[in-house]
């Protein structure tokens, strides 16, 4: 499940945020803020994608760097929400 989540995130961010046809070129642990991958409006888009694709609800208070600032941390966050849902 974790790999599927990572793959979906990499594909979405590469295509819709970075407009990178060759895919997500950063490491899974690379900080979105430090590397300029996401800004505040990009985060809103990613939240919308996550809610739509994974059918989970993201609370405003959960949008923190700990949960959101890399592919790895997002993957852990999403899988936690999915496990809780199931």
């Amino acid at each position: 499940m974790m790999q599927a989540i990572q793959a979906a995130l990499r594909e979405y961010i590469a295509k819709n945020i970075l407009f990178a046809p060759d895919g997500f070129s950063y490491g899974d642990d690379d900080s979105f803020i430090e590397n300029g991958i996401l800004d505040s409006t990009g985060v809103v888009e990613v939240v919308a994608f996550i809610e739509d694709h994974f059918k989970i609800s993201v609370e405003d208070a959960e949008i923190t760097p700990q949960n959101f600032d890399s592919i790895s941390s997002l993957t852990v966050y999403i899988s936690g929400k999915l496990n809780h849902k199931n």
Partner: protein
Amino acid sequence: MNTADYFLSHASDDALAFITADAQVSYSQFKAMCARLAGELIQNGIQVGDRVAILAKNSPFWAAAYLATLKIGAVAVPISNLYPPDEVQRTLEFAQCKFLFIDKPAQGKYANLCSRLSCFLLDKSHFQGDPALWPESDPGFDLDSDAALMPTSGTTACPRLVRVTHRNLQANTDSIIEYLELTAAERMMVVLPFYYCYGASLLHSHLRVGATLVISNTFTYPETVLDMMETAQCTGFAGVPSTYQILLRNSTFPRRELPRLMKMQQAGGKLHNALLQELAASHLAASVYVMYGQTEATARLSYLPPGLFHEKMGSIGRGIPGVSLKVLNENGTPIQPGETGEIVAWGENISPGYLDDEEASSEKFRSGALYTGDLATIDDEGFISIVDRKSDFIKSFGHRISSYEIESCLLQIPELVSAAVVGLPDEQAGERVAAFVVRKTGSTLAEQDILQHCRARLARHTVPAQVIFLPNLPLNAHGKVLKSELRKMGKAA
């Protein structure tokens, strides 16, 4: 007095100048940092009038680099760390920069810059060792010499560099301190970049009164900023419309207590009435200062006293202390209530012009006055309300339509986070009204819902002909909507 000395002369050495996520910097420590960097510039042969670029995120180091540059009589050139590499290179070349202050993230992003220019890395490891001496003041210092070259946001055109003199900086800072009633007790949360005149004005005004600036570079995650405001007990916050749209509709801001928050500043474009009312209601103990300005005016031109927030809702107020604002018609005479004209400004904060652009300077700056390009009305008490940018007016079926009026109507819909309206070419109409909107996360609001809302509230000829949903609006480095990009998108669709 040199502006660096002007900024540092009121502070108590023991007071905190900066709070960041991982450090607290006192004024005595900050002065030592400034001296260190002034010494670095002198050792590298930087002289009066030389241009020194700063390319880094907000930090005490950024501020020290800026003050050090001002102190030795060089000219600061703050550059956005969001620019693509070729834009940075063009700015460095155009401004003929001789030195570059850069931080580690920028050094990684703009890899080749330091091979072409003398650089200093703004990193704490470079601030160790013996404290340096602050250079002596120059009694022959020219207040009308350039202090900084500031990029202008240029929502419709390519950015230009605005010449800002020492007199401009000091005059505008004095005015801002006066109307905001700033004191050394302030703790100001700063999320706006210092390379933007609005962000810079926060730095200038709070240093001058010896207050504390709380710096956060993580507004990407607004909850971290709100947490820091609670921890640092911030008394002030400043934002542009997109900042407040996110805080009000996509964060826990309205539900946070923030008992020390006393002043909320809003500038950088129009925050529509529906959101202004939400902002005021979110923290009843805090005053909302609606303000207006331009980079060409150093930062600020007008403000609306918080006491008149509800009575004059939607107005940008009147000129700040030391600034004269008039609204003139095409013949150059003041308009009457009910008419529309262009805002024109006079004051010691008005820039002498753009760097190396005589044509644009002569268009914008005439006989010492700044022609803002903003169209406005004025009431019988002299309170000004902006109708639109001259260049953003929509001309449809012979009508001149204000995009602001339609955006204001759209933002009454709680499910919309932001909206921008432009005119798109139309064979029949000349231009048709197109609304670009961003829905709140999870919203299923449809085009017909939006059009129905508009039809019930707007004159028929101003109802959008089409609604285009976007995940977000294109913003420039200052957070302003790039209507030129929306027009391109609309034409391409």
